[in-house]
């Protein structure tokens, strides 16, 4: 098997048995990037020298017998370019941070490095994670490796495309309203948005702090469990990080092997199925997924999430409101781009932001500022946060009668590049299945479940109770094994 095809689990075994070295593995990825990324555009920065040096160090540590202690020793990973990396440019796909070099690593980056990982590069995204297609990057668009006329989804489109094109063994993304799960679905890979608080956000450049969460994008469910084991845990540097025990997530796979999924109940929200605009292929794939889970012994029940109709509206008040506050820090004073033509400070702020931020970011800042302004605060932000509480309560009630909730990830497979660019509202509505879990703080996984009639991947979303990633992984793994999709990756 070619080295770029290996999962983390397989690569780790090969490295331990000295079948190949970390330098071989990393060079295989760098060669793929050289060959394919000019066309796909998954990366913003490739840290060739850094990766090769880290791989050499990893090989020394492997020969010193350290591999068994370090779960990612010598494994090449990519990071969404929203995660701070010490000494390596972190742009957030924005002109305003084009030359920003962080002085520190995000907590997740330190954790990956401590586990021995080799970071090959930083991946493309919608600017500051604002978007669902990676077309809003300030630098270039990313293409879907399955069909380059289509988007890879977003905002973690670069990470999902890099994993699907096997230009890295696995990657990290971030998810504020679906930004891990939707691109994972569109690119035919696995993505997990963990429970809010499971993973430290320290060093993640904030978009909407009460919704943002970092998670893995991988070739299969096992690899996601392996990465979660490394990146989860309490961090005193993030006050919203949960101070609770981190289980061994790979135990979920052992659990499936011994117990299967018998006795589990999955809820299907009736409001999701009555939504208009569901693509027939997505609907068929979802119905087939239900059958597969039923064959594994999962009982299907109907549940109700009555606030579904208000979820997108509430989300698009809360997220831009938080963004308008978070992005105020990019004022040209402490870091990033500064416009030098202004002769007073207010003018400098205005010119810096207007030249540095792209249209979607400016649109969200204006919408958020409007929603938070005197006279409108109660009608917009106040109401939206109350609807948010009701969404959380809906899920809590639904989970009284089931262990999982399942749905499609997105209403359609990946759309064509340029199809929705001028219509932000239509783009926002595509987040309907994913954003409620962010509102409620729940974990969710996207697992590949089908290929559409025009050859594009479709994902199944499984959601679970707060801090119950074990059930997600168990069900996701069981589903993946039982489905046995033949065409797992694009033929490139």
């Amino acid at each position, binding site marked *: 098997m070619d080295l770029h095809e290996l999962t983390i689990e397989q690569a780790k075994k090969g490295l331990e048995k000295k079948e190949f070295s970390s330098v071989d593995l990393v060079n295989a990825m760098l060669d793929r990037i050289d060959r394919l990324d000019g066309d796909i555009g998954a990366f913003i920065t490739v840290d060739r020298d850094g990766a090769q040096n880290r791989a050499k160090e990893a090989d020394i540590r492997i020969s010193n017998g350290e591999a068994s202690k370090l779960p990612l020793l010598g494994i090449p990973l990519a990071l969404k370019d929203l995660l701070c990396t010490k000494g390596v440019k972190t742009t957030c796909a924005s002109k305003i941070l084009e030359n*920003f070099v962080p*002085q*520190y690593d995000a907590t997740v980056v330190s954790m990956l490095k401590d586990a021995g990982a080799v970071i090959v590069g930083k991946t493309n995204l919608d600017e500051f994670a604002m978007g669902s297609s990676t077309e809003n990057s300030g630098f270039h668009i990313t293409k879907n490796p399955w069909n380059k006329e289509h988007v890879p989804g977003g905002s973690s489109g670069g990470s999902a495309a890099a994993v699907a094109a096997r230009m890295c063994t696995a990657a990290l993304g971030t998810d504020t309203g679906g930004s891990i799960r939707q691109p994972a679905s569109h690119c035919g890979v696995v993505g997990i948005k963990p429970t*809010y*608080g499971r993973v430290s956000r320290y060093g993640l450049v904030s978009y909407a702090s*009460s*919704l943002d969460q970092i998670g893995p994008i991988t070739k299969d469910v096992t690899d996601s469990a392996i990465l979660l084991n490394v990146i989860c845990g309490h961090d005193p540097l993030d*006050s919203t990080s*949960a*101070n*609770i025990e981190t289980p061994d997530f790979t135990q979920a796979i052992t659990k499936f092997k011994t117990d299967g999924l018998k006795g589990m109940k999955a809820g299907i929200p009736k409001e999701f199925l009555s939504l208009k605009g569901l693509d027939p292929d997505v609907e068929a794939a979802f119905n087939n997924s239900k059958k597969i889970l039923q064959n594994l012994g999962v009982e299907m029940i109907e549940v109700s999430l009555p*606030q579904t*109709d*208000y979820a997108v*509206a509430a989300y*698009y*008040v809360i997220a831009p409101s938080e963004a*308008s506050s978070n992005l105020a820090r990019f*004022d*040209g*004073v*402490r*870091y*990033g*781009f*500064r416009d030098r033509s*202004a*002769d*007073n*400070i207010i*003018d*400098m702020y*205005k010119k810096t*932001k*207007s030249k540095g931020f792209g*249209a979607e970011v*400016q*649109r969200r*800042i*204006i*919408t958020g*500022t*409007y*929603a938070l*302004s005197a006279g409108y605060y109660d*009608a*917009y932000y106040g*109401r*939206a*946060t*109350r*609807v948010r*509480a*009701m969404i*959380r309560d809906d899920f809590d009630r639904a989970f009284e009668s089931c262990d999982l909730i399942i749905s499609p990830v997105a209403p359609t497979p990946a759309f064509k590049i340029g199809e929705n660019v001028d219509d*932000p*509202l239509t783009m*926002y509505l595509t987040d309907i299945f994913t954003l409620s879990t962010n*509102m409620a*703080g729940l974990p969710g996984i996207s697992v590949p479940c089908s290929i559409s009639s025009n050859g594009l991947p479709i994902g199944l979303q499984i959601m679970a109770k707060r801090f119950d990633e074990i059930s997600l992984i168990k069900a996701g793994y069981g589903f993946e094994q039982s489905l046995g999709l033949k065409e797992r990756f694009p033929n490139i």
Partner: protein
Amino acid sequence: MKITQKDVEYIAHLSRLEVDETLVDKFAEQISSILQYIDKLKDADVSGAALMAGAALENNVFRQDEVKASPGPDVTLSNAPERHEDFYMVPRVVG
């Protein structure tokens, strides 16, 4: 809620943005359609619902009030667009 070009310019000013002339029209139209959609929140029955500002576990987070090492001015100021000694330089603020 429909907003005008003038509204866009005013909110942009509050946000310390200067929207490009060619975009003001488009923004007014796009943000109006977003706000019209968001207006459906007015139909939601939120009576009795509490505010939910975040999804974190609801507990206070304390730490010891200890002095810790700082990275120092050179590291801290390494991304400063303009620096004078150990200070950030900005254009004139007063007058």
